[in-house]
Structures are given as C-alpha cells and as structure tokens.
C-alpha cells in the first residue's frame, strides 16, 4: 500500500475517532480545553507508536511462532499497561518538563481503546513494521487533530445559550456528528 494513502486515509478519511469510534472516552472527556487536548494528543502519539512497535514484535516473534495467537488480547493489553507505567517512570526521571506536560494523561491511556485498536489493526491489515509505524503515527495525528478541533468548538459551546436538555454531552455529541460528517467529505478527494 502506498504510504501516502495510509497517512491520508488514517488522518482524514478513516479518522480514528470520527469514523472508527476508537478513543471516544478521552475525546469526550479531555476535550474541554484546547491546551489539555493537545497534551493528550502528544501522550497518545508517544504511547501509540511505541506500543505498536512492541506488539508487532510480540505478534511476529512470539505469538505466531509458538502458535498462541489466542493470547493476543491478553498480551497486548499487558504490554500497553506496562509500557504506560514505564514511560511514566522514565519520563519522571529524565524529563520532568515533559512529564509535567504529559504525566496526567498517561494513566488514562491504558484504557484508551485507540491504542489497543491500532495495535490490532496493523496485524489485521497485514502491514510490515515500517507501514505499522507510519500507520500508528498517522492515527495519533488523526486523533490529535480531531480532539483539537473538537475542543476549540467546545470552548465556544460553553458560552452558548442552549436548550437545557442539550447542554453538555448531547451538544458535544451533535458537534462530533457534524465534524464526522465534515471529515466524510475527504472521502471524495482520493
């Protein structure tokens, strides 16, 4: 598959949040402010890329050779959980500044299904290692883009006068729907 198509499709056409419904919890939960949403995006990119590489290696060098592919879910989620812990510890030691910026988001990432989702998707799509890394980075970018735009709109939404029942989550979901519709337009480009 051409690299450009992987990147374009992952960021715009099949946006991980708006079209694939992965990572909805942080998308709705952490998108109140623009600054936090970008921080979350950065943390996701870091962990997603790392997790995809490690799970890729586990899949092709342990699970498949030993014929235990059914351990995929359990081993992947353990890898992701320990990876998040490790990243947290290492960041704290070597870059307190970066830890300050990303630290609060890290625990949330273990239960971010976008990470596990992408790790499984690269296996299902039969990507090689390079394609997998590109796919992971592109999806993280797509996630960041979606959550960034969304948080910008939600900041405005706070000061809007809305019908009582629509306030908060319902309005946010409608906005997400409109965004998703807008992103569908990218399908026509390629």
């Amino acid at each position, binding site marked *: 598959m051409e690299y450009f198509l992987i990147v374009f499709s992952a960021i715009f056409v099949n946006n991980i949040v708006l079209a694939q419904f992965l990572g909805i*919890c942080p998308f709705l939960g952490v998108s109140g402010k623009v600054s936090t949403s970008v921080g979350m995006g950065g943390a996701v990119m870091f962990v997603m890329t790392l997790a995809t590489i490690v799970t890729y290696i586990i899949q092709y060098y342990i699970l498949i050779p030993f014929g235990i592919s059914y351990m995929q879910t359990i081993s992947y989620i353990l890898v992701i959980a320990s990876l998040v812990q490790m990243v947290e510890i290492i960041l704290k030691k070597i870059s307190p500044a970066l830890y300050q910026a990303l630290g609060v988001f890290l625990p949330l990432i273990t239960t971010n299904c976008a990470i596990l989702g992408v790790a499984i998707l690269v296996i299902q799509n039969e990507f090689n290692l390079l394609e997998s890394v590109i796919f992971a980075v592109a999806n993280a970018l797509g996630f960041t883009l979606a959550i960034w735009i969304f948080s910008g709109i939600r900041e405005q939404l706070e000061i809007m006068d809305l019908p009582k*029942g629509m306030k908060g989550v319902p309005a946010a979901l409608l906005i*997400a729907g409109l965004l998703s519709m807008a992103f569908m337009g990218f399908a026509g480009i390629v």
Partner: protein
Amino acid sequence: MPPILPGKHLWKEESMTNKDIFKRGLIKENAVFVQLLGMCPVLGVTSTAINGLGMGLATTFVLIMSSIVVSLVKSFIPDKVRIPAFIVIIASFVTVVDLVMAGFFPGLHEQLGLFIPLIVVNCLVLGRAEAFGSKNTPFKAVLDGLGMGLGFTLALVLLGSMREILGSLSLFGLKFVEADGILIFVLAPGAFIALGFLIAIINVLKKRFA
C-alpha cells in the same frame, strides 16, 4: 467527565438491598446514558439493533464473569498490582468470548470485529471490577454485573434500533418499508447525532419525572 475508575462516589454500598444493586444499573445509573462509559462500542457497533444486542450480551458476560472472579480472588491480590491483575482476568474472559463467538456465531463475530477484543479496555468493565467486585461478595458482584450489563445492552439495543429504523427502515433485519432510509444514520456521523439526541431526551425525561 469519565474519570479512569468512575462511579465510586455515586452510591453507598452498605445500605443497598440486593434488589437495588441489580436495579440501579438498568436505568438510574445506566452505564451509557448516565455514566457515559464504554462509548466506543456504543457508537461503533450500533448500526443495527442485532449488532447492539450481540455486543451488549458479550459485554454483560465479561462483566459478570470478571466481577465474580475478582470478588473471589480479591483477598489474594496485593493492592499495588490489583489493576494489572484485574486486567488479566478481564482479558481472559474477553478472549473466551472472542473464540466462542468465532466458532459458533461467525457472522456476528465478523460484524463486531475489532470491538470484541476492545471489550478489554471498556472502562465500564474495569470500573465495575474495581469499584464493586473488589469490595463485595461474589453474589452481589453477579447482581451488579448483571444489572450494569443489561443496562448497557438496553442502551445499545435502543441506539441500534433507532439507527436501523431511521437509516435502513428495518428493525432486527426485517425491512418494513421497501425504500432507502436516511443513509447518514447508518454512517459514522449518525452514531454521534443519534446518541446525542437520545441522551438529551433522557435528560429531559429524567427532569420531568424527578
């Protein structure tokens, strides 16, 4: 909104009867409409009612089984490793569901696809194991899991039916008008919009009856 392990502060466990434990998950503290947990599968698989039902039941099974096991082994697990331990337990039951579904319901398995392994990271499951299963008897854990799971299933079926009726003019695969529906409800944007309206309606109803 959703904290990582939500719901701890929502109720007082001691004063609740078994009936309350079961009942609250259905509507009052519905995982989807009230607690906003497990949104990924809620949006991802509800293009038809039957997919919603399958996903809901699969999640309920994992919820009940992992709650039982967690409440059985809770005193053997040191506090600091309890989350990883819970995750392993949950992941095992998810894999069981995955394998059994692939073997006996291949059609549904194909439809739900990626969202089956992703039950592992459904915050609802880990949240219940941590907030309830790890503090209560297995029997209460079953009631809690059943209530929460059925509430989750109810939400998925409701949203799935709504999208299927509007989007393809059919329900549970039975077409009642030979025409095209409003396509957008089957597509991704429709999931967000339908859920948004559903939650708004429930908010309004809750206020009216409260």
